[in-house]
């Protein structure tokens, strides 16, 4: 069984490395400042005793006030997992850094989030709609879509 690591403990470890990078943390997850996202992700992937070499899934949630993007990370080496979240407060043109350079599996999932939620990912190699067609108006999984 994969061990779900405590967000609290990892956040304590990360806080020393990246002061101001962690917004909040709990037993289940930790929330990263979006400006630190790529650095934190690189750290989580490359640090030997963390070694999160597999990205299970990316999800996005619309909380009206902000968008939250959820990264579920797994280590094949140590058989443990972690949930990392980041928030995006802009609504007109929300942008987050892309993690495709770290995990190739993020490619389609970031495209899906761009398609349905309208969040742009900086550094994505091919950011275009995945399920809907070019020219579709709006992003249908947003709460205010009608």
């Amino acid at each position, binding site marked *: 069984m994969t061990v779900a690591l405590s967000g609290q403990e990892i956040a304590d470890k990360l806080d020393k490395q990246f002061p101001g990078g962690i917004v909040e943390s709990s037993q289940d997850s930790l929330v990263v400042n979006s400006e630190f996202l790529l650095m934190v992700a690189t750290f989580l992937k490359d640090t030997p005793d963390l070694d999160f070499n597999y990205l299970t899934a990316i999800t996005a949630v619309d909380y009206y006030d902000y968008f939250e993007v959820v990264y579920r990370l797994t280590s094949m080496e140590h058989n443990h997992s972690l949930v990392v979240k980041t928030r995006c407060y802009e609504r007109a043109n929300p942008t987050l850094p892309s993690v495709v350079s770290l995990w190739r599996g993020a490619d389609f999932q970031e495209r899906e989030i761009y398609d349905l939620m309208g969040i742009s990912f900086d550094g994505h190699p091919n950011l275009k709609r995945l*399920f*809907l*067609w070019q020219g*579709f108006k709006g992003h*249908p999984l947003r709460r205010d*879509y009608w």
Partner: protein
Amino acid sequence: MEVDEPTGIYPSATELDRTESEVIEALKKRSQQPIPDPDEWLDEELKRNILLTSVDAILNWARRSSLWPVVCFPACCAFELITTAASRFDISRFGMEIIRASPRQADLMITAGTLTWKMAPQVRRIYDQMPEPKWVIAMGACAISGGIFRSSYSVVPGYNRIVPVDVYVPGCPPRPEALLYGIKMLQHKVSKGSIATEGREE
């Protein structure tokens, strides 16, 4: 022992030979002239018309007895269609067991499932690649009207927006019996066609 003695109700062998020769001679006597062509009295135009009716009958019989469906199963109704094709319900009883992977060899499209706008051009293309004559059965609520996804941003509200539909089979999904009934209705429709009036409005 007398061989030719009649025994009981049966005639003797000699008697059989004699009646046989009588029958043959009588037939030969009245068969000296060839039988005239029964429609010899018809003029050329009338003959062709009568022939046309027969062609209709045989074409319609052949068409309705070998409806080959094309693979167009975008969603979950496909499982009911597969069940219909499998041994318990067995559409090969109606001459339909060959479900073609190529639309060029098919003349029936059973639209089993929800159609999204993104998939719609491909479905239209499959339909266009099918040779005439061709028919479409809209299977299930989604194929008829979009079903529960009708108001969705990505779903086509009914296949009749994309291709002309001949038979609608309601259900979500329809039972195989319902699909079989729809197929029989389509066969009934096919049997009423005529090559003289063929070619439909698009």
